[in-house]
């Protein structure tokens, strides 16, 4: 059976890049990924890509060369990058193709997103009355989770403290300076219980991957981590998702739980086997809940995990080793692929000061509105 490998990974630094369009950044990431793989654009047989505010992803082709191959634009909210990689994985796995590119890029205006209710199948009044903000959802979800599972605000703050610490050593991160716990806890309250430094901000950036069948990889004498599994899952009735005017009283597992279980089953491994993880951390609460939703710890154990530094570099399971969304900001189209980029670098032993020793199995999870999750498990080639 075909296995799918990532033989090249490129990124254009996240944050603010004045004078560069989102597309400029996307093209730069594609060129870096091609150079990293050591292949030419003319060898690429297909592409999947996405961007929310940066235009059509297939516009990269006009810059890289109009080779006539298929390119499909992907739009799956914050999970766009993970979904694009999933599509490329299936394209190669099916045996139709051997070499593909996946790209995501974005450039957002400052401040919170202001989604159009009707594009989400919601009535206008939901936006007019001031209920359609992702920041509110993050506050509402962690507020209840904290009450149910005994999480304190110090634990929330520790997530951000770790993110900014990790970002210092990541060249592609936006936030490159440490922020102490006290400053995080006492920064401006945005949506209770989450303060300013507990939220990621919309930003800019791009990432691209070259994916290849094992057969072609050997033929070309290349190497790269194998994709052990990919799973994308959507919400069930009763799960607590963003942009929900109402919820069922009977709660159901989150889409992340479904995607995580499917990915572990497909890979034939469990959470205890993972060496490094990138989890969606649009806010500190999201990382805390995703630690449990992905099966890494029990609900409530996060207090102990964070206090003991188990998810910090040097801990048992380093999480968001490049600073995550908190440290890099979130350009929607690129964010999920940044996670993959970071895992590829970790598995290839290229992460310098933030390298996780002997990382072999790497996990990434991205969550998107209106309630979907994409999980990718990579295995290093060492």
């Amino acid at each position, binding site marked *: 059976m075909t296995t799918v490998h990532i033989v090249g990974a490129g990124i254009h630094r996240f944050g603010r890049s004045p004078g560069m369009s989102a597309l400029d950044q996307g093209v730069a990431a594609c060129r870096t990924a091609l150079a990293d793989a050591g292949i030419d654009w003319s060898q690429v047989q297909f592409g999947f890509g996405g961007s929310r505010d940066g235009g059509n992803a297939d516009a990269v082709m006009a810059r890289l060369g109009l080779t006539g191959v298929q390119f499909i634009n992907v739009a799956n909210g914050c999970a766009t990058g993970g979904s694009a990689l999933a599509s490329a994985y299936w394209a190669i796995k099916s045996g139709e193709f051997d070499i593909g590119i996946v790209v995501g890029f974005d450039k957002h205006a400052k*401040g*919170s997103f*202001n989604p*159009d*209710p009707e594009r989400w199948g919601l*009535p*206008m*009044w939901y*936006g*007019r*009355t*001031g*209920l*359609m*903000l992702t920041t*509110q959802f993050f*506050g*509402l*979800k962690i*507020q*209840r989770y904290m*009450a149910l599972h005994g999480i304190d605000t110090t634990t929330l703050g520790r997530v951000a403290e770790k993110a900014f610490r990790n970002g210092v050593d990541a060249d592609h991160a936006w936030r490159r300076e440490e922020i102490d716990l006290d400053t995080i806890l006492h920064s*401006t*309250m*945005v*949506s*209770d*219980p989450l303060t300013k430094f507990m939220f990621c901000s919309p930003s800019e950036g791009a990432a691209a991957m070259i994916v290849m069948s094992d057969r072609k990889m050997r033929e070309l004498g290349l190497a790269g981590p194998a994709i052990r599994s990919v799973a994308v899952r959507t919400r069930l*009735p*009763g799960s607590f998702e963003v942009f*929900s*005017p*109402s*919820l*069922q*009283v009977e709660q159901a597992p989150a889409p992340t739980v479904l995607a995580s279980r499917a990915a572990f089953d497909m890979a034939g491994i469990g959470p205890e086997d993972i060496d490094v993880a990138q989890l969606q951390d649009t806010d500190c609460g999201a990382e805390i809940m995703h630690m449990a939703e992905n099966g890494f710890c029990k609900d409530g154990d996060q207090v102990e995990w964070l206090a003991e530094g188990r998810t910090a570099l040097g801990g048992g399971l380093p999480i968001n080793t490049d600073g995550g969304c908190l440290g890099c900001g979130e350009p929607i189209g690129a964010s999920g692929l940044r996670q993959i980029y970071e895992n590829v670098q970790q598995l290839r032993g290229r992460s310098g000061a933030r390298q996780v020793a002997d990382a072999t199995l790497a996990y990434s999870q991205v969550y998107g509105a209106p309630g979907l999750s994409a999980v990718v498990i990579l295995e290093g080639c060492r």
Partner: protein
Amino acid sequence: MTMAGQPVADDLYRLVDGAVRLIAARPQDGGPLAFPFPQGSEADRHERILLPATGTLWSWTVQRFAPKAPYDGPAEADFTPYGVAYVQLGDMLIVEGRVTGADLSTLRIGQPMRVVTEAYARGADGSPIETYAFAPIEEQP
């Protein structure tokens, strides 16, 4: 709690014996209740169900900055933070809405809440625009 303002949308709530009742939708072919009642072609496939006028606070947060459009409440200069909550109405449904008439620093999960209306914005002619909201029920000492 008067119904003086112009509702922000039709079919959101009804005043019944002095109580504000939210209008939920039950699919005619079965399936879970939902709020709000759908508009347009989906409406024919649903039955209107009035939700209880009181419930308990399920989760809450505070909107502390002025949202961007399509929000049409008081902008930057006149903005005051407002609460946002999910309230469980009986055993029927958990509904999201604004919080009014509350000291936001005292909100706690599980406290009793009632459905009210709130003039959250003003129209071009200065007349109030109203939506449903949740207010704490004062507990007996």
